[in-house]
C-alpha cells in the first residue's frame, strides 16, 4: 500500500477488503522473519490499541484546557512528556540542569497500558545519532500483553507518541514481542492502520498541526506532504491535553519581518517559558499574533548565550520553514523548579508546527533542544543572577542563529584537540611551546617581583600528561603454523630492505671521493656531538626533576658526555699529544661546527677551553678565509670572552702570540705580518685580539706579582703589537664588535704619547 493511500482509508470496509491479503502477507512475514515474527492477529492487537487510545484522549478532553498540572502528572498516559523526559534522561546525561529538571519526574511505567509499548524514547533511541547514548531500556514482554480494545476507525485522536515504535530494532528477534504488538518498522501492509503506520514512519510524536483559528494566518502547509496529511487540522492526533491548542505557523514573509529582532512577545507564556531560548523567529511568529502577558520573560528568552544546548539541526529551520515544535505538552514543565511557570500560564497553548517532513533524527534533536531550552529557561527564571554574565553584548542578543554549535559539541572538539596534545614527554614533543611559556612565566614572575603592576591573568593551557607506559610489543605468533608468518603492523613494521654497509677499499677511491668522505665524516661527527650537547644541556632540567639518589648518576653521565664531546671536537688521538688541529679545523670550517663549538665551550673545563681557544687563534687566518661566506665566527666571541676571563696571564700571552704570530719567524721575509694583518682585517679577529689584550691588561693591572719572565714576554709582545697596529692603515682595520675600554691604558704603557694618540684615533 502506498503511503498516500493510507491516511485516507479509514473505513472499516477498506479494512476488511484488505483482510484477504493478510494471509499472504502473513506468510511472507513468516518466511522473512521466522515463526516468531507473526504469531498473532494484528487485527486484534490493533483493536486493543485503539481502545487504549480512546481512553486517554477522552480523559484529556474532559480535563480541558484549564486542567491542573498535577492532574496531568498523575495521568498514566502522560506519554509524550514522559517519553521526552525519558529521552532526555537517556541522552542528556551530562547537563545538570536537565538532570535536575528531569529527576523529579519519575518515568512511570503504567501497568500494561499504552505507554509501555509505544514508548517514544525507544523510537528515538532507535535513531542512533552521534549524540545519543546506546542505552536500551528493558522492556518486559509482558508489557505487550494488552487488554482487548475495540478497533478505532479514526486514528487521529491517538497520541502519535503512542504510535511510536517500540524498542525493538529493525530486525526481529525470535521470542521477542509479537509482531502485532510490536510491529517492525516496515511499511504498512494494511491501509487499515493508516495513521498507525504513519506514526511509525514519522515516529516523532510532536508534529501535529492543530487547527488554526480563523484569526491566524493560513498555515504555510499548503504544500501538504502525505506525512502531513495524516496530521490534518482538527486532529487532536497528539491527544495533548489542550486540544484547542494552536499552531501558529507564519508565512515566510511574516517570519522574515519578525526576524528583524522586533520585541518579541510570546503567545503562550507557558510555551515561551518552556521553550526557553527558542529562536526569536519562533517567538516572532507567535508575537505577531497575540500579545504576551509576559514582557519580562521575553528579553531573557531572547538572550542567546545562556548557554548551550542548541540543536545543530536548528539551522534547518530556515529551510524547512516550520518552527521547531515547542515542547510538546504542558505537563512537561511541572517537574522541579517550575512553580513560577505555573503562574505564567493563563492560556495553555501549544505550537505544534508540522515537523513531519524533517528527518527523524532532526526532529528528535529539535525537541531535545526545546527540552533543554525549557529546562534552561526554568533555571533562567529561577536564578537570574547566574545568567547575568551571559548578557555580554547586544549583538549576541540579536543573533538568532547563535549557538548552533552545542556546548557539548564544542567540548567534543576541544577534547579531540586536547587529546592531540597528549604526550609522555612534553619537552621532547613540544619543546618550543614549553620553552616559550616558561619564558613568559619567568617574565611574569619577574614583573611581579619588581613592580606592583596589575597582575595579568594569563591562563595557561595545561596539556594532558600521559604517563609513559613501557610497552614491549611482541609480534603476534601463530601456533601450529608452518614456518614463520610475517605479521607486520604499525608497531612492528616489516623489514623490507636489507641495507648492508659495504666499506670500500682505500685504493679504489679517488682524491675527490676521499675529500668528500672526509667532509661527510666531519658532518657526522658534528651531528653526534650535537646530540651529546643537547643531552648535556638538558641535564640541568633533568637534575631538578630527578630524585636525590639518581643525581650522582646523572652528574657522571653528564661529565662523561662532556668528555666525549671534547674528544669529538679535537679528534680522538691514540697518542697523548694532539699534534694536529686538523680535525678541529675541519669542524670549524663548517658553519654548524662553529656554532657547535660556541655552544660547547661553556661546558668544557678551563684547560680544554683554553686548548680550543689556542687552536682557533693559531689557525685564525685559515678560519677567516673559510668563514668569508658564512661570517659565523663572531658567534664565538662571547663564549671566548667567558673563557678568557678565567685564563691566567701565561695563557693569555701565548694566545696573543698565536693571534699575532709574533715574533715572526726568521724565515718570514715579508715586511708585513700577514697573519696579524689578516686578523686585524677581520671583525672577529680584531675583536678577539682586543679581548685578549684587554684581558691581559686586566691581569697586569690587577696582579702586580707576575713573574718577570712572563712580563718580559708580554712586554715584548705588546711592543711588537703596537708597532704593527700603528703600521696598518686605519681603513684596513676591521670594525670590532666591541672595543674594550682598557686598551688605551694598555697601550699607554708601551708607547709614548704621540703614538698613543695615533692609536687612539685608529681604534
Amino acid at each position, binding site marked *: 500500500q502506498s503511503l498516500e493511500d493510507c491516511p485516507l482509508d479509514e473505513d472499516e470496509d477498506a479494512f476488511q477488503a484488505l483482510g484477504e491479503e493478510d494471509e499472504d502477507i502473513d506468510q511472507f512475514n513468516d518466511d522473512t522473519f521466522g515463526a516468531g515474527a507473526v504469531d498473532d492477529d494484528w487485527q486484534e492487537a490493533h483493536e486493543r490499541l485503539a481502545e487504549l487510545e480512546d481512553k486517554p484522549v477522552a480523559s484529556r478532553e474532559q480535563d480541558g484546557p484549564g486542567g491542573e498540572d498535577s492532574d496531568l502528572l498523575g495521568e498514566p498516559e502522560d506519554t509524550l512528556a514522559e517519553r521526552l523526559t525519558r529521552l532526555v534522561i537517556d541522552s542528556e546525561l551530562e547537563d545538570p540542569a536537565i538532570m535536575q529538571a528531569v529527576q523529579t519526574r519519575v518515568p512511570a511505567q503504567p501497568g500494561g497500558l499504552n505507554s509501555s509499548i509505544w514508548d517514544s524514547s525507544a523510537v528515538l533511541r532507535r535513531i542512533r545519532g552521534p549524540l545519543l547514548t546506546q542505552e536500551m531500556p528493558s522492556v518486559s514482554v509482558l508489557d505487550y500483553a494488552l487488554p482487548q480494545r475495540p478497533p478505532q476507525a479514526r486514528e487521529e485522536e491517538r497520541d502519535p507518541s503512542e504510535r511510536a515504535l517500540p524498542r525493538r530494532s529493525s530486525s526481529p528477534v525470535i521470542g521477542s514481542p509479537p509482531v502485532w504488538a510490536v510491529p517492525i518498522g516496515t511499511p504498512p501492509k494494511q491501509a487499515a492502520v493508516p495513521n498507525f503506520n504513519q506514526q511509525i514512519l514519522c515516529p516523532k510524536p510532536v508534529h501535529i498541526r492543530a487547527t488554526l483559528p480563523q484569526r491566524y494566518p493560513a498555515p504555510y502547509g499548503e504544500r501538504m506532504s502525505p506525512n502531513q496529511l495524516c496530521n490534518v487540522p482538527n486532529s487532536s492526533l497528539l491527544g495533548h491535553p489542550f486540544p484547542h491548542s494552536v499552531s501558529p505557523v507564519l508565512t515566510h514573509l511574516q517570519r522574515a519581518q519578525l526576524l528583524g529582532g522586533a520585541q518579541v512577545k510570546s503567545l503562550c507564556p507557558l510555551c515561551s517559558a518552556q521553550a526557553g531560548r527558542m529562536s526569536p523567529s519562533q517567538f516572532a511568529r507567535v508575537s505577531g499574533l497575540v500579545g504576551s502577558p509576559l514582557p519580562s520573560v521575553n528579553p531573557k528568552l531572547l538572550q542567546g548565550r545562556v548557554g548551550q544546548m542548541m540543536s545543530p539541526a536548528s539551522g534547518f529551520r530556515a529551510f524547512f520553514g516550520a518552527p521547531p515544535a515547542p515542547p510538546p505538552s504542558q505537563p512537561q514543565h511541572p517537574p522541579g523548579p517550575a512553580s513560577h511557570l505555573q503562574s505564567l500560564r493563563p492560556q495553555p497553548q501549544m505550537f505544534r508546527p508540522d515537523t513531519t517532513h524533517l528527518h527523524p533524527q532532526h526532529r528528535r534533536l529539535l525537541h531535545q533542544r526545546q527540552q533543554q531550552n525549557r529546562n534552561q529557561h526554568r533555571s533562567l527564571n529561577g536564578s537570574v543572577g547566574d545568567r547575568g554574565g551571559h548578557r555580554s553584548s547586544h549583538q549576541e542578543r540579536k543573533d538568532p*542563529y547563535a549557538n548552533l554549535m552545542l556546548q557539548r559539541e564544542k567540548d567534543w572538539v*576541544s577534547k579531540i584537540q586536547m587529546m592531540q596534545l597528549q604526550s609522555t614527554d612534553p619537552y621532547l614533543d613540544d619543546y618550543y611551546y614549553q620553552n616559550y611559556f616558561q619564558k613568559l612565566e619567568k617574565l611574569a614572575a619577574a614583573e611581579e617581583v619588581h613592580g606592583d603592576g596589575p597582575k595579568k591573568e594569563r591562563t595557561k*593551557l595545561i596539556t594532558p600528561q600521559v604517563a609513559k607506559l613501557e610497552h614491549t610489543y611482541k609480534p603476534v605468533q601463530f601456533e601450529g603454523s608452518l614456518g614463520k608468518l610475517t605479521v607486520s603492523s604499525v608497531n612492528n613494521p616489516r623489514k623490507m630492505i636489507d641495507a648492508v654497509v659495504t666499506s670500500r677499499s682505500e685504493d679504489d677511491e679517488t682524491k675527490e671521493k676521499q675529500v668528500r668522505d672526509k667532509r661527510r665524516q666531519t658532518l657526522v661527527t658534528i651531528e653526534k656531538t650535537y646530540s651529546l650537547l643537547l643531552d648535556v644541556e638538558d641535564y640541568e632540567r633533568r637534575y631538578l626533576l630527578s630524585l636525590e639518589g639518581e643525581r650522582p648518576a646523572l652528574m657522571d653521565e653528564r661529565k662523561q658526555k662532556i668528555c666525549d664531546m671534547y674528544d669529538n671536537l679535537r679528534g680522538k688521538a691514540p697518542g697523548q699529544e694532539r699534534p694536529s688541529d686538523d680535525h678541529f679545523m675541519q669542524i670549524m670550517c663548517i658553519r654548524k661546527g662553529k656554532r657547535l663549538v660556541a655552544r660547547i665551550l661553556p661546558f668544557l673545563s678551563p684547560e680544554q677551553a683554553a686548548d680550543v681557544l689556542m687552536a682557533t687563534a693559531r689557525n685564525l687566518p685559515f678560519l677567516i678565509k673559510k668563514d668569508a661566506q658564512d661570517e659565523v665566527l663572531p658567534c664565538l666571541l662571547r663564549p671566548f670572552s667567558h673563557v678568557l676571563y678565567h685564563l691566567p696571564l701565561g695563557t693569555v700571552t701565548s694566545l696573543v702570540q698565536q693571534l699575532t704570530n709574533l715574533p715572526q719567524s726568521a724565515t718570514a721575509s715579508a715586511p708585513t705580518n700577514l697573519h696579524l694583518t689578516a686578523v686585524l682585517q677581520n671583525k672577529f679577529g680584531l675583536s678577539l685580539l682586543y679581548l685578549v689584550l684587554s684581558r691581559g691588561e686586566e691581569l697586569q693591572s690587577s696582579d702586580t706579582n707576575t713573574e718577570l719572565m712572563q712580563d718580559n714576554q708580554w712586554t715584548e709582545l705588546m711592543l711588537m703589537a703596537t708597532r704593527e697596529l700603528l703600521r696598518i692603515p686605519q681603513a684596513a682595520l676591521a670594525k670590532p664588535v666591541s672595543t674594550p675600554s682598557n686598551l688605551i691604558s694598555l697601550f699607554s704603557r708601551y708607547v709614548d704619547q704621540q703614538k698613543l694618540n695615533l692609536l687612539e684615533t685608529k681604534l
Partner: protein
Amino acid sequence: MNYMPGTASLIQDIDKKHLVLLRDGRTLIGYLRSIDQFANLVLHQTVERIHVGKKYGDIPRGIFVVRGENVVLLGEIDLEKESDTPLQQVSIEEILEEQRVEQQAKLESEKLKAQALKERGLSVPRADTLDEY
C-alpha cells in the same frame, strides 16, 4: 570558559564574523557557526567578496561548509572597524566586470612575458600545480 588558552583553537571564534581566505583565492566573509577537529568550517550568511583595485563587491552566498584543508587563513572581523575602509563597494556586476578585465590584463602580460622569455631561449617557470594562487 576559556577554551585552550595559548593555542589557536577556533572554539572561541564561534558565532563571530570572520574573513576566510581559501586556497583558490576566494575571500569569504561570514559568521562562523561550527567547526570540527580538521578546521572544517560552517559559515553562515556568507558573502564572497571580490576585490579589484580599490573596489570590492559582495556576492551573497548563504551557508558555506568549507573543508579545512582549503583554508589558508581566517580572522575575526571587528564589527566596529569593519566600515572604515578606504575601499569602495560596488555592485556585483561591476566588480565581476572589473575582475574580468583584470584577469584579461594579467593574461596578456603573462603571454608577453612568456613570449619574451622564449625569444631569449629561456623557459617559463611552471607554477606549482597544486596551489592556484
